[in-house]
């Protein structure tokens, strides 16, 4: 360890956090890695279908430029373009690095990396490891970090929960306060820089989410409440194809459609026949019908809304209108595909479906519905544009820096790459890439740091520790009749119905007022648990409180944006593409003009700042230097 070695804290051990850890340890710094559990249990393990990188393995003349364009348009132009450019340019190198780590990527007959099709693109650009790609990538970096642990370069603090950052008088982040989830000890840790890699927040929609139970967004909410800006919170992805389920809606990868799976409903909603007894002519392949160009692999926001329309508006869900809540399902069909091919390339999801639904997707179509999946929005992070190359300037200390000096964010908890809608298989890429970039940026920040955390007065740390210990006490004291697990359930139901796939200002106003009421009910909290050892109710109650705070940011950001863009869909402001009209047709050109006028008003980043009375919403411009918004998204 060199004399210039500094102490860094990374929070979260999924792909983002582990990549940041690798980059920092390799730069010679000491890393303390905090996680709620053993890092290999992180939600990255749940990603199935693959990771995008232009390798052009399939003779389709794929190009990095096309990856950039697809990502920008997939996100409805809302993401800043320099970070997208750099991510797509660096993707092939990341894949090579993963491959060297021993990740078991699926192979072509020649032993090279295989690639498959994903949504919102026309090229086979997705590398994969069966249907457990996230698990395989996570284990690859987990193994490397374990090696660095044995070399004394990384110290893991598993079973610790991040509670807050510690800021000095100048507002610089100098460490964190965390809680040991076993002893419940609350303790401050000094750090010269902190990287937050705490993942997504799908639990805000529980149980109708594909996310793990620890993807609460609580850590991001905590730094938001301490002054970190939170961007594009209204953009939350609903994955079109999740299993039905009362405890969780498990993901069935988009790769199922990329590999040829078809989505359909019976034309007659009253049709009670077994699906495979319904002849082709009596099936409605609505994605193929409405979007003949992209078919079943339209982007997720479009597929999710199409399923919504079929079930909720047209009453064509399986079982029809009299099926009650179970009208909320359509078929995802793999039965026409070669069984060996499907088993080799999608085995992991077949096994999940068999175990949890008790049916075999090789024998009968799966039943699926959209579910809360991924936050495009997240902590606002900066970047430095490279004036000559156009992308992010490599190694700039500004990259992935939040507005709090010394605090960085990467992975799903940041907002940087996906704009209004994320393309499938771009999240394993952004998580890995941003983790590495954040690690490199922190290393640059540290080399310019005059004074480290050791100089910060002890009182700073003591005060913040005490504040957190007091909060624990306050949460632990029975004050009424409100159970934290029930509050969580109510939050999930509220968000699913009122801040979901389709939005409406009156509903959003109602949601905001319900969320304020939900927050107030914490005054009457009763944990129903008094144990001073491994008290999970306490940890959960604190998470749910911070989830409510973050849900307010999501609802307020959604309320503030009066348009339709990507995953944020407010029908009252919809500018629909005229049916049957294409570029060159006067109706389409008139639409293009309306679309451009709308962009002039709304093509801007939403930025929320914490205020005790509720989030303050402002907007900032988007860097469109690479691809001007001339072409509306059109996947027909």
């Amino acid at each position, binding site marked *: 360890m060199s004399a210039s070695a500094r102490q860094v804290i990374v929070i979260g051990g999924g792909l983002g956090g582990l990549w940041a850890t690798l980059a920092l340890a390799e730069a010679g710094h000491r890393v303390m890695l905090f996680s709620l559990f053993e890092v290999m249990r992180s939600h990255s393990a749940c990603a199935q279908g693959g990771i995008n990188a232009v390798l052009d393995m399939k003779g389709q003349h794929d190009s990095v430029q096309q990856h950039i364009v697809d990502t920008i348009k997939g996100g409805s132009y809302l993401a800043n373009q320099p970070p997208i450019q750099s991510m797509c340019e660096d993707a092939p190198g990341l894949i090579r690095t993963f491959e*060297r780590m021993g990740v078991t990527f699926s192979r072509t007959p020649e032993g090279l990396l295989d690639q498959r099709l994903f949504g919102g693109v026309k090229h086979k650009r997705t590398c994969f490891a069966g249907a457990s790609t996230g698990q395989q990538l996570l284990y690859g970096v987990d193994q490397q970090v374990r*090696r660095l642990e044995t070399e004394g370069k990384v110290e893991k603090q598993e079973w610790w929960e991040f509670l807050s950052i510690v800021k000095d008088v100048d507002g610089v982040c100098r460490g964190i306060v965390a809680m040991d989830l076993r002893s419940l000890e609350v303790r401050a840790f000094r750090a010269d820089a902190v990287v937050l890699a705490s993942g997504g927040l799908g639990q805000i929609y529980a149980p109708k989410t594909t996310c793990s139970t620890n993807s609460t967004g609580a850590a991001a909410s905590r730094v938001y409440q301490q002054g970190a800006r939170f961007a594009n919170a209204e953009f939350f992805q609903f994955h079109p194809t999740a299993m*039905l389920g*009362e*405890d969780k809606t498990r993901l069935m990868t988009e790769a199922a459609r990329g590999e040829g799976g078809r989505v359909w409903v019976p034309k007659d909603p009253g049709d009670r026949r077994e699906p495979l007894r319904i002849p082709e002519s009596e099936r409605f392949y609505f994605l193929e019908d409405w979007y003949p160009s992209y078919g079943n692999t339209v982007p997720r926001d479009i597929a999710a809304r199409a399923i919504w329309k079929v079930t909720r508006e047209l009453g064509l869900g399986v079982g029809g209108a009299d099926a009650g809540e179970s009208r909320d399902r359509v078929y995802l069909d793999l039965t026409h595909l070669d069984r060996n091919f499907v088993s080799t390339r999608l085995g992991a999801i077949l096994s999940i479906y068999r175990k949890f639904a008790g049916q075999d997707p090789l024998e009968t179509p799966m039943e699926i519905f959209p579910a809360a999946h991924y936050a495009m929005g997240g902590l606002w992070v900066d970047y430095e544009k490279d004036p000559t190359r156009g992308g992010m300037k490599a190694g700039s200390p500004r990259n992935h820096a939040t507005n709090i000096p010394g605090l960085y964010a990467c992975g799903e908890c940041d907002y940087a790459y996906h704009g209004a809608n994320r393309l499938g298989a771009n999240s394993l890429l952004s998580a890995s890439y941003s983790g590495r970039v954040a690690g490199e940026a922190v290393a640059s920040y540290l080399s310019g740091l005059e004074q480290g955390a050791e100089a910060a007065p002890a009182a700073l740390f003591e005060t913040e520790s005490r504040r957190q210990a007091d909060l624990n006490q306050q949460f632990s004291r029975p004050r009424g009749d409100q159970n934290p697990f029930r509050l969580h359930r109510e939050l999930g139901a509220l968000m699913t119905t009122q801040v979901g796939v389709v939005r409406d200002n009156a509903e959003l106003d109602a949601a905001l007022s319900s969320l304020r009421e939900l927050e107030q009910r914490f005054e009457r909290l009763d944990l129903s648990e008094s144990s001073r050892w491994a008290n999970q109710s306490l940890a959960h109650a604190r998470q749910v409180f911070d989830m409510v705070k973050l849900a307010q940011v999501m609802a307020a950001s959604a309320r503030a944006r009066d348009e339709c863009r990507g995953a944020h869909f407010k029908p009252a402001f919809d500018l629909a593409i005229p049916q049957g009209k294409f570029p060159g047709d006067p109706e389409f050109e008139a639409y293009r003009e309306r679309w451009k006028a709308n962009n002039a008003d709304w093509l801007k980043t939403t930025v929320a700042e914490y205020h005790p009375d509720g989030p303050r919403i402002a907007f900032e411009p988007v860097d469109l230097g690479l691809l001007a918004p001339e072409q509306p998204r059109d996947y027909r």
Partner: protein
Amino acid sequence: MHAEANRQTVELRIRRQDRPNAAPYWQSFVLEARAGANVVSLLMDLREHCVTKDGERVDPVAFEHNCMEEVCGACAMLINGLPRPACSALIAELEAPIRLEPLPKFPVVRDLMVDRARMFEHLKQVKAWVRIDGAWDNHERAPRISPQDWAANYLYSRCMSCGCCMAACPQVGSDQAFVGPAPLAQVRLMNAHPTGRYDKTERLHAIMAEGGLSDCGNAQNCVRVCPKAIPLTTAIGELGRQTTLQALKDLFGND
């Protein structure tokens, strides 16, 4: 599997323990299981209203869970005497009353939570990684891997360190040094990788030492309980051949 379909009433008998060194005790709970419910979802329902069969209000049961789709490995426990992930243990398929106990062979933290740190220490001991120069792009690809080799390796790379195989193995114990089946299978995986095999000798020496391969008693419990159907005994068999060759090499020199 549809929401309004049948509900059933089930009894859970849970072995509880308040602290690592406290005495364990049993409690019974009776609750409604929704159609499609599993052990994790039932334990989640129980948290909201944790009252025993005898009507006593008690602290919620501590347990681990995360992905709820059998990919993270967190929720493994003993269910009706068998080690398995709780999320994929469907209530409808379990004999009632359902007995839940913490995963054996690991120290209990509280109730159904155990500390599996040992497993991760064993992964270090056997050097379960491919040594790379650094996590940067050096513009080189790893060597090719045939689809056949990929298919064999992929079976092992899906190990989620849930600990079920360790729990079932009669040779694994808190007072025994045996590294256990899962870490051994990782040695098999790393030794098969085209550059991972550069450190094959070191890994084999690690499992030829105390607590290594020779502690396997060939009970074959591991392969029977593995939720991911990883051919653990095949790996152990292959490693047997590798260590025999290594022992000969060690005796007579490398080439």
